[in-house]
């Protein structure tokens, strides 16, 4: 059997980067370990550029267990972009943690690797292994501030609930395997097509899959872990968790449901529509009374997952395109917002919204970026979030889900309230302490990139839209 390993060069390069930094980390003296973060950023950026040459390959490896197509490449780039931006922004914050500087970045690279394999998984075993690579790395990252018991507590909660959801997901996978006799996703669909009637065990399996994936994307009613974990985890980890783990779960969820179970899409689409509606409503309404900005952003990201889920409900090329497009915008908006939060707390030690009073005077850059990112999440034109929501909602409006669009639009309006109240605190209130906030160069670069991209893609969404369209077409190829 011929195996063309060069098709795996992105994944191999990522492993080499992680292991290489691990070894270099042992060699360099303790006070020079701060360079490792930049090394990881540069390595990830190089892998990101190389990955552009993987568009248009569209092939399968290892008898369909591993899929290299435009869809997986698009999502791999999404993960690489978020990992690059997070590592670039995190340097000052991680310096405050103090110990194990190198390992922090290595775990981020390993989590990225898990996500990349997840987006390429063509087999249920590959899927499970990739999912656990990502999740176990995140357990460790969440508990990284060993001295801070909030961080450890968040990690324990994440581990218990994450392992529980993995168990449920795995039970679903085993039932799917047992009822169809195969673990390759595309063959599952063929086997289901041959069946005269749906065995009840398969239906149970699919419901378990919805539950397991629902947990990973923090859809209501499986969202209870995310506010606690988002608040307790170190802020760079929260940013990466919010974008990376969610986007990876969406990437694999769409592959499983759209490729393996198209024959009973009528049933699971209703299920996802109900979950999406609940998620949008609960996420936005609970975000309003929050006083901690990380908790507020956690609930807002739950609501964002609800918007993204409407693209899954559409279950066609337009829907997948909407998910891919919105996922990419969401990366920039979320990482921008969390970069502001991490630099603010590295300077002041606070995550409370009331302490953001007068931030516009203390650091105009931080205040501007936070405002732009939050307004983009709310979907205010001309920012990128507006174009993203437009693609998502227009994909389901013609399919009889007008009620879901109306819920989405109403709740987007409600979300403007809590997003703008942060902006109001930053611009209208007077600072209690007007020492300027120091933002290191790396974080400044992240802030400027996220703001520029958010504005640019809102005014001119064409390039990303073309890429997302290509990715969506490759999924159904």
């Amino acid at each position: 059997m011929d195996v063309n390993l060069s098709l795996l060069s992105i994944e191999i390069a990522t492993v080499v980067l992680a292991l290489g930094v691990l070894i270099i980390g042992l060699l360099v003296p303790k006070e020079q370990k701060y360079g490792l973060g930049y090394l990881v950023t540069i390595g990830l950026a190089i892998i990101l550029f190389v990955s552009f040459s993987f568009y248009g390959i569209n092939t399968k490896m290892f008898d369909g267990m591993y899929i290299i197509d435009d869809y997986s490449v698009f999502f791999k780039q999404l993960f690489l972009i978020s990992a690059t931006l997070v590592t670039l922004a995190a340097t000052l914050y991680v310096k405050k943690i103090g110990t194990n500087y190198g390992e922090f970045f290595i775990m981020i690279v390993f989590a990225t690797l898990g996500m990349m394999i997840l987006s390429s998984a063509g087999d249920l075993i590959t899927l499970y292994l990739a999912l656990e690579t990502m999740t176990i790395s995140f357990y460790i990252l969440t508990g990284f501030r060993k001295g801070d018991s909030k961080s450890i507590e968040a990690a324990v909660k994440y581990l218990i609930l994450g392992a529980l959801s993995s168990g449920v997901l795995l039970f679903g996978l085993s039932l799917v395997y047992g009822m169809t006799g195969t673990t390759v996703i595309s063959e599952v669909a063929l086997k289901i097509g041959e069946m005269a009637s749906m065995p009840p065990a398969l239906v149970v399996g699919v419901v378990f899959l919805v539950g397991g994936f629902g947990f990973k994307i923090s859809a209501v009613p499986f969202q209870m872990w995310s506010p606690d974990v988002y608040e307790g985890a170190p802020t760079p980890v929260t940013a990466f968790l919010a974008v990376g783990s969610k986007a990876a779960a969406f990437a694999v969820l769409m592959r499983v449901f759209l490729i393996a179970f198209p024959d009973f899409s009528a049933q699971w689409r209703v299920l996802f529509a109900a979950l999406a509606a609940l998620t949008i409503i609960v996420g936005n309404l609970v975000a309003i009374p929050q006083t901690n900005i990380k908790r507020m952003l956690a609930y807002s990201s739950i609501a964002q997952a609800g918007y993204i889920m409407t693209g899954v409900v559409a279950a066609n090329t337009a829907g997948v395109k909407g998910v891919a497009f919105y996922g990419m915008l969401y990366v920039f908006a979320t990482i921008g917002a969390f970069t502001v939060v991490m630099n603010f707390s590295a300077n002041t030690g606070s995550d409370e919204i009331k302490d953001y009073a007068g931030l516009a005077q203390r650091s105009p850059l931080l205040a501007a970026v936070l405002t732009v990112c939050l307004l983009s999440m709310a979907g205010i034109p001309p920012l990128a979030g507006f174009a993203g929501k437009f693609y998502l909602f227009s994909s389901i409006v013609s399919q009889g889900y007008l009620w879901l669009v109306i819920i989405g639009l109403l709740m987007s309006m409600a979300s403007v309230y809590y997003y703008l109240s942060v902006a109001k605190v930053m611009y209208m209130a007077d600072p209690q302490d007007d020492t300027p906030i120091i933002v290191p160069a790396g974080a400044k670069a992240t802030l400027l990139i996220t703001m520029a991209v958010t504005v640019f893609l809102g005014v001119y969404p064409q390039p990303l839209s073309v890429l997302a369209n290509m990715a969506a077409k490759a999924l159904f190829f």
Partner: protein
Amino acid sequence: MIGLNHFLIFSGTLFCIGLFGALSKRNAIAILMGLELMLNAVNINLVAFARYVTTGILTGHVFAIFVIAVAAAEVAVGLALIVAIYRARISVNVEDFDWLKW
């Protein structure tokens, strides 16, 4: 004659016991044990399916071995975190983990 259904009923029961244990226990170690029961129920499922559904093809066995390996990794991280939180709180009771609003 013991058939596939017996195994499925057994693994379903084991899964429910594990799930109940994970949700009702207060001790974090006991919760991890409940989680292990859930994963072992999955393994029984996989091996039974490999025996009765895809006789001669070892996909189910391979899947079960991977599940065992991953479960070991998960428990290793889990126990490390529980040791870390025990140092901070002198407790492994999940009801004491209330610094964050649960």
